């Protein structure tokens, strides 16, 4: 059984694509067969973050409209054999995605033996976002510790609870909170919502906390998802989140201010 995970947020620019790419890489590194699909028709970017933008020949809409087979459109990752990317179309209008078309692609991927299908949702609450979440079993809601992101996420939670296949069948999409751009220092100074604050407001459990880090921009500059950088704290935080998605217990890291010792302050380190 393939597990369908939507990565969503409502608000743009909070790290959905970065998170989709890193969760996909992390799961694939754990030996899972993973397909990651860009639902942002007209504004595709997952291909850039994954570093395969020059290898896109056919896209999601081509497959839905029968102009290419799924096999032709899936791009195999050059770093991890078990990871595949399905790019969004760059030119078509948003109505190119249909519920039946999306369902068929997801079913075909499941029949092909994929363990996880990650749906990278566009921002907003329009068609693309709706279809990205509709068939999901689980949802990773990406949130910045900031008022507009938290409020928009609550809207998304409302949609997950009403406008999804699971909701229509009387069950629930399993929802998780993933906080990005978290700064323990600012939280401690009372300038930023804490993990507990966001959990309280949204009523969600946290699957990962990604610290604010220059590594994330460096990773997207290179087209190497940050989860593949073992040196990076943000990358390690994503690897922890992947482990938790797989049901493992991991303590949260990088969520408190690290106190530097007297010597490291003087000598660096």
């Amino acid at each position: 059984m393939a597990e369908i995970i939507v990565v969503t947020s409502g608000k743009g620019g909070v790290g959905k694509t970065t998170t989709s790419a890193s969760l996909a890489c992390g799961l694939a590194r754990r030996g899972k067969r993973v397909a990651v699909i860009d639902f942002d028709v007209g504004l595709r970017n997952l291909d850039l973050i994954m570093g395969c933008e020059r290898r896109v020949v056919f896209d999601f809409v081509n497959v839905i409209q029968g102009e290419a087979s799924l096999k032709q459109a899936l791009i195999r990752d050059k770093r991890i054999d078990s990871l595949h990317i399905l790019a969004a179309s760059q030119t078509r209008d948003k109505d190119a995605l249909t519920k039946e078309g999306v369902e068929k692609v997801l079913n075909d991927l499941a029949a092909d033996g994929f363990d996880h299908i990650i749906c990278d949702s566009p921002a907003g609450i329009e068609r693309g976002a709706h279809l990205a979440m509709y068939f999901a079993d689980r949802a990773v809601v990406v949130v910045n510790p900031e008022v507009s992101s938290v409020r928009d996420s609550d809207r998304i939670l409302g949609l997950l609870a009403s406008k999804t296949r699971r909701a229509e069948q009387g069950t629930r999409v399993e929802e998780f909170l993933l906080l990005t751009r978290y700064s323990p220092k600012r939280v401690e100074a009372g300038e930023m919502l804490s993990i507990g604050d966001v959990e309280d407001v949204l009523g969600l459990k946290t699957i990962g906390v990604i610290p604010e880090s220059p590594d994330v921009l460096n990773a997207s500059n290179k087209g190497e998802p940050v989860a593949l950088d073992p040196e990076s704290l943000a990358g390690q935080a994503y690897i922890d989140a992947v482990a938790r998605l797989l049901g493992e217990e991991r303590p949260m890291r990088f969520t408190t201010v690290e106190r530097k010792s007297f010597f490291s302050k003087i000598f660096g380190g």
Partner: protein
Amino acid sequence: MSLFDFLRPKKNTAHIAKERLRIIVAQERTHRGAPDYLPELQRELLALIKKYVHVDVDSVKVEMTKDGDHDVLDISVSLPEHSVSR
């Protein structure tokens, strides 16, 4: 950054953010899943009632609530004092 900055009390803006969010999220959740026609219905009811009674804009409340298995359309109108005689 002045030398005596540490003497000034720090503004805890995160606390303000949390309180604002708690209130707005709770308010928006009560409207969640409600039909799209509710605001329009509320406006029209208000206009109708105003023909007979002088009421404030916020005196008409239209909400969809759940009672067990079925939805209840809850309309409440608060009349001002001395509004009965006309």
